[in-house]
């Protein structure tokens, strides 16, 4: 199972499931400390305070209705509740060929690396793959993708630095048809979801792809950095508004962050998580697995002891306000 690689990667950064919470279970069952600990765990996983509070309200309701008295029972229900919210399974991989996949997202989230990793996946299922470097803006972005292309033995269509990314996509789509490519993967430049012009550029990229290859893009994947906080929701909202995002890739899940905003995006916007990335090599990407994700969400979340906070400097108040 490919989920195993993911779990192994997580095992390096996560300790026991329910980590700190598990220690609250026992003598202090369903005390206010238990509920607060639960809230803390959920918030620290970046689920957001609103989702955390909703989950807790639901759990309290369940415990009343079912007469639950023990913390471990609640944790079990929580697990189920989270899994059920994630039922939104990833879309099946499209069957049509040529298949056009476009990766979008804010700056530095992991698009280029994910493009290479997705190329690797399609290659191993026997498809002929092509990469398009539609990031003509960032310094050496094409070179970065070209290096991945070399390693994969995959052709990379590039454009001049500063040239129109739409033109790169046009050329790549033409080349896809001409060379009988099965899967074209387009890497776009990172852009803040608040930049109207750049979002319009993305719309154009999608249009151009569709002009050459009817129905394209078949997959638009939003790459989200797992360390992102509540802003991830605004990102997902804006990218979904601009283009037909079909799913999310939560990259960098091997970091110490739990990627809870991926859950929030899934439950608030109904966007499925398609893949997760958990490292910097070609193998470090796997299809989404709700169980593994939920386990990761609830894994140990240590608190920082109070005494480690240095006191703020009283002389640092700015006087000009």
């Amino acid at each position, binding site marked *: 199972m490919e989920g195993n690689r993911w779990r192994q990667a997580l095992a390096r950064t996560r300790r026991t499931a329910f980590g700190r919470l598990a220690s609250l279970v026992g003598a202090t069952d369903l005390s206010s400390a238990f509920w607060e600990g639960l809230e803390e765990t959920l918030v620290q996983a970046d689920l957001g*305070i609103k989702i955390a509070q909703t989950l807790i309200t639901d759990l309290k309701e369940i415990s009343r209705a079912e007469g639950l008295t023990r913390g471990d029972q609640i944790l079990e229900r929580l697990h189920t509740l989270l899994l059920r919210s994630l039922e939104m399974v990833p879309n099946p991989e499209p069957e049509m060929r040529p298949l056009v996949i476009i990766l979008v997202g804010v*700056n530095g989230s992991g698009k280029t690396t994910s493009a290479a990793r997705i190329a690797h996946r399609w290659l191993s299922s026997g498809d002929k793959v092509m990469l398009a470097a539609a990031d003509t803006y*960032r*310094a050496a972005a094409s070179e970065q993708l070209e290096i991945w292309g070399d390693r994969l033995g995959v052709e990379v269509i590039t454009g001049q630095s500063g040239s129109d990314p739409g033109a790169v996509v046009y050329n790549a789509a033409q080349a896809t048809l001409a060379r009988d490519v099965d899967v074209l993967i387009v890497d776009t430049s990172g852009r803040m979801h608040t930049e109207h012009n750049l979002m319009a550029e993305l719309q154009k990229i999608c249009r151009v792809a569709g002009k050459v290859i009817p129905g394209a893009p078949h997959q638009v994947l939003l790459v989200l950095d797992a360390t992102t906080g509540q802003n991830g929701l605004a990102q997902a909202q804006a990218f979904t508004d601009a283009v037909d995002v079909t799913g999310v890739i939560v990259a960098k899940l091997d970091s110490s962050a*739990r990627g809870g905003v991926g859950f929030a995006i899934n439950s608030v916007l109904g966007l499925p998580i398609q893949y997760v990335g958990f490292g910097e090599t070609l193998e470090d990407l796997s299809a989404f697995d709700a169980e593994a994700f939920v386990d990761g969400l609830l894994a140990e979340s240590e608190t920082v002891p109070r005494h480690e*906070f240095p006191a703020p400097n009283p002389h*640092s108040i700015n006087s000009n306000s």
Partner: protein
Amino acid sequence: MLSAGRSLSAKQTVRRLVCQSWCAKMFETLTERLQGVFRNLSRRGKLRPADVDTALQEIRLALLEADVHYQVVKDFLETVREESLGEDISRSLNPAQQVVGILNRELIVTLGEPAPLTLVGEKPRAIMLVGLQGSGKTTTAAKLARWLRGHGERVWMVAADPRRPAAAEQLKVLGDEIGVPVFFDPKLSPPNLCEAGKEEASKGGASVVILDTAGRSQLDQPMMEELRDIRDAIHPVEVLLVADAMTGQEALRIAQGFQEPLGLTGMILSKMDGDARGGAAISMRVVTGVPIKFIGTGEARDALETFDPNRLASRILGMGDLRGLYEKAEGSFDMDQAGQQAARLLQGEFTLEDFLEQLAMMRRMGPLGKLLEMFPTGFGGANLQVDGNVAERQLIRTQAIIQSMTSDERRRPDLLNASRKRRIASGSGTTVQEVNQLLRQYKQMRRMFKKAGKRGMTGLPFKLR
């Protein structure tokens, strides 16, 4: 015209217009939310504990939604509570303003004063940039190099990232663009590479050398070891953590994870040009105690600013980056024209021509989405934030409606009867309802300006700095 004695500069007037006509209507600020909480509070004596606690609940939500760490929020609210209970209700402020004031003050204290780079000791002085993958180190290295050169330094950069594909290439391209030499040697390990780079820079007469290290997780022991080796070989005057402003709860442990083994001297918060609240800054500052030295505000080479705690505090509280907005407004308004217009507006002579002009000014200030981010947002959470695109589209429609009117109609909107409205609607591709709606808005604004003119500066919802 305005008399000189009113001492309202054109700039201030414009600020007020922008502020009143847009933010007051569109957004609910934390102050307003708290106003609701405090509505029944008596105006005399100290703030009552129960009222303060209700207010703190609201504040707690706002801070958590801004991504401030759970534990940090808890400690922080304790301080604000104590401060609030100790304070007498002042006559000039209502309780909500007062609590927000305390909160704001505490945030500013916590965020700390902006600190300069410490460039001391033997040259070249090394600045080491560290951080997670993709946080913005390489881009920031180039921005910093450009900034330092502008301050008279002779800068070199060292590409100490042999891992990420084309990382050195990226730095070289940036170096070429800004005219700063870049040292790289793929055969050397990062610590040796940094040493060699520093030596080379020294020979080249550099006064500062910036080390761009590879992104890494703070949990990765061997990689953290590597950073220590670099530090011990180079003795940098600054070890700066470059952190993404969009970071969530984990910011605290990330910062701690770099601080403990390395001993940071400061932080740079990148990607502040998005609409993230930036609460991560609070967590990182609290856990490391080191100052935030710069913020990154875009991908361009000049998108680096010195840190301003006042601005960040307002932003974390969802009160918007008002100062940033004013600066933007100043850049795009013709002050004389705006001043004259403002004077007329305040006397209640606000025509649809003026309205149109205002809209044009708004649009000149850049994409509306970007502008809106700078306004205070209620704290409904990211998903409830006002959609810049929708607002922008509305703005364009409004403009189209006014542009379809004759100049007579623009000056005297009461001329607009049903058949004229139908003509305007079809001319602008809108509906009569939309035309009516616009007229209602216009009348409302005219009333507001007239009131503002009578009241002077006190009508402002926010303190101007």
